[in-house]
């Protein structure tokens, strides 16, 4: 049964080359774009180093101070009471609104004081990720980003070490001059990643010994992307001792499990309520913007002010809408084509029905044919996607972000193929299966 269906399907495809070409073109390009998009999302938001534990990470990138004031409304009613004017005054507090606002990353001392023991957090790290240095090597300028961190940073973000090791708590504390380089930085600076361990690099006027080389992280996440990683104690004394709330630091927390993330986020929010502000006349409300890896990513794409969760919702809505619209169009197109193609075969179907085939078997045969066509398109689309990904990576179209085509993506694509095939085949197949035998045979010159 199966093999005869398959044979039939291939025969039908071969008969009308032009129609087959149009269908295959539509299917393969649609699937190619879907596969490249899923590959992109998988690369950006999947679980792989340095964010294998992304579902357990909570980030605290920003601190916001606001001044909320309420409008006061003073109204006086006059009325005549016993021939005398009487006054009745009311004083109402209006809705609170914000009249000044500022937001920034956070100072080390603030994090040190308030963010050390959050319930649900297994580890925490405070780091500064927005310093840049110009470094000259053989007359060529390199602009290196430096990320200053403590030792627990390496426990939260599991960087893939190509060589060497991360720095340890003792080294951070004793200000041992060590540094970890990214692969790209090592290639730019030394021309190689071989035997770089033990050599030294000059950053900020200090000679640092290189103790590790990590695989280049994607540059879309500023809390992991860097060229050189240094112990936090190499930051200037002023940055570390600054007592105000604002500073160059961010924090990351590792939750015990996925669910404990909300415990940490709730605890951070609660802290914000308790901490008293240094000058309440200027600002009277403190907000700590915590985020998950995914919501922070969405926040950078769709800036909804100070609300990563809101940004994620909005992003999901827009992305799903676009995706649906995008799938809908080729599907409609295919349905249209399939109906035309199936109509042509009404005679064949009429004969099958006349010999006793029921609607169900006709339906499944036509659906099967469509799924075969879709899988054929899927294979083509997969090859096209591989080519496109290669081209994108080769041309540095997305900077340091390298798209990877992995099994997860392939499985998703297979699923997409199946859904696509069934979706675009269902309506035509249903129509055909309901065809009256008499009409089907009569209108055709067999």
């Amino acid at each position: 049964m199966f093999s005869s269906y398959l044979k039939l399907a291939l025969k039908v495809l071969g008969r009308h080359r032009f129609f087959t070409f149009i269908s295959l073109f539509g299917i393969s390009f649609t699937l190619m774009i879907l596969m490249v998009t899923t590959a992109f999302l998988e690369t950006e938001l999947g679980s792989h180093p340095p964010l294998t534990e992304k579902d357990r990470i909570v980030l605290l990138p920003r601190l916001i101070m606001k001044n909320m004031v309420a409008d006061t409304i003073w109204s006086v009613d006059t009325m005549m009471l016993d021939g005398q004017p009487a006054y009745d005054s009311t004083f109402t507090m209006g809705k609170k609104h914000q009249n000044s606002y500022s937001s920034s990353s956070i100072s080390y001392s603030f994090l040190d004081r308030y963010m050390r023991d959050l319930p649900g957090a297994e580890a925490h790290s405070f780091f500064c990720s927005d310093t840049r240095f110009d470094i000259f090597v053989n007359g060529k300028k390199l602009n290196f980003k430096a990320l200053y961190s403590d030792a627990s940073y390496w426990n939260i973000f599991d960087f893939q070490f190509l060589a060497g090791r991360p720095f340890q708590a003792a080294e951070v504390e004793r200000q041992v001059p060590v540094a970890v380089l990214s692969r790209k930085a090592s290639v730019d600076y030394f021309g190689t990643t071989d035997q770089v361990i033990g050599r030294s690099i000059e950053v900020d006027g200090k000679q640092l010994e290189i103790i590790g080389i990590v695989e280049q992280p994607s540059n879309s996440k500023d809390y992991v992307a860097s060229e050189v990683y240094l112990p936090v104690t190499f930051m200037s004394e002023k940055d570390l001792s600054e007592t105000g709330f604002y500073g160059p630091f961010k924090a990351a927390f590792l939750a015990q499990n996925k669910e404990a993330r909300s415990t940490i986020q709730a605890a951070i929010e609660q802290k914000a309520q308790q901490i008293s502000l240094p000058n309440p006349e200027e600002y009277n409300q403190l907000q700590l913007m915590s985020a998950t890896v995914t919501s922070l990513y969405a926040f950078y794409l769709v800036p909804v002010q100070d609300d990563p969760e809101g940004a994620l919702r909005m992003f999901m809505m827009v992305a799903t809408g676009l995706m649906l619209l995008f799938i809908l169009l080729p599907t409609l197109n295919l349905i249209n084509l399939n109906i035309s193609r199936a109509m042509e075969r009404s005679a064949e179907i009429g004969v099958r029905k006349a010999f006793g085939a029921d609607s169900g078997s006709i339906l499944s045969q036509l659906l099967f044919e469509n799924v075969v066509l879709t899988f054929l398109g899927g294979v083509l689309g997969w090859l096209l996607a591989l080519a496109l990904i290669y081209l994108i990576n080769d041309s540095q179209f997305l900077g340091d972000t390298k798209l990877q085509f992995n099994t997860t993506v392939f499985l998703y694509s297979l699923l997409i193929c199946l859904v696509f095939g069934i979706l675009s085949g269902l309506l035509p197949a249903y129509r055909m299966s309901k065809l009256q035998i008499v009409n089907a045979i009569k209108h055709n010159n067999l």
Partner: protein
Amino acid sequence: MIRHIFQLVWNKKRSNALLFLEVFFAFAILFLVLTWVTRNLRLYSTPLGFETENAWIVHLNLYEVGDTATTEEMKLRLREELLSLPQIEAASYGGSVSPFSGSTWSTNNDNNGFMIMTHLVFTDEHYKDAANLELVQGRWFDETDRDSRYKPVVISQQLYEESFEGRNLKDSVYTIQGENKIIGVVDHYKYFGDFATEYSVSFFYEKPASLELPNLHLRLATGTSVAFEETVNRIVADVTGMNDFTIEHLQKSREQAARSVWIPMISMLSICGFLVLNVALGLFGVLWYNISKRRAEVGLRRTLGASRMEVSLQFIGEIILVSLLAILLGVVFAVQLPILGVLQEEIEAFDYYVAMGAGAVLIIGLVLLCTFYPSQQAGRLQPAVVLHEE
């Protein structure tokens, strides 16, 4: 004729419904993408207002300095020393809000009896030369502004049009940030990049030595070699005794800022192009098939005296009617966006209407292109042959 076509379309409403939906969604996608593209291109077409070619910015870190007087003196010495090089044509100190950096400082008030909304940029008297700003009114800062009673301000043309058009600039003191005298107007200052909305900008004066101005803007002579940067780097390091400064090439930053718009724009446009091509091919196939199903009808019409042209026009008319109806429905939805002012700050009504027009024209053109050949074929059918088949 038109009533007749309506009748024909209505008779085949089931198969036309799918075509209708397809054109409708194609229009919807085209409209959304083209709106965004139109917006970007409209913004791209206005000038930046300052030059980025051969412009560098040395970002100094003045947070950690101890003694104000020595630092001020050091800043002036650094500028003098760099200016003495023949490759450097102009040098000016600016505040930490620098082009393409993403940082802003804005303020708004209605203390003057009318609304002022503006972004603040702090510069010294040399910035006009360093950035090649174009003045449309008044003058730029000069040394006489150092001790003026009211802080002098140069505003951008946009702020002028928004808040000061028709007001006396010369002798009035306005409250923008403190008490200010407006001494000049520059034409544009789109400091977020080519594709960004232009904001109203006010330049505030600070003296070059001030610690509020940590960025040294340099204008280089054309044809300066890349290796010259190392010289600048060494001089800055020697004079300031600091290591944590960076030198930014403004042209590079500008390209990078533009790239972040070009990339998604090109991706979206190519996806859109593919979708449209897909729809066109589909349309072509369906039409081809439909016409071959209606051979008998064509034959009959031809025997009854219809010309080739009339037969072709009938098929084209049917498809165009369905497409027009679908686009009409699309426009009914699309028109709500500018009417309701969706995303008003970013997208102007103009963008929506251009996208609507372009989308409609594109789809109609495509449909015409796809119907042309099959309907021509239909016109060429020989009545004797097709009627014989029947």
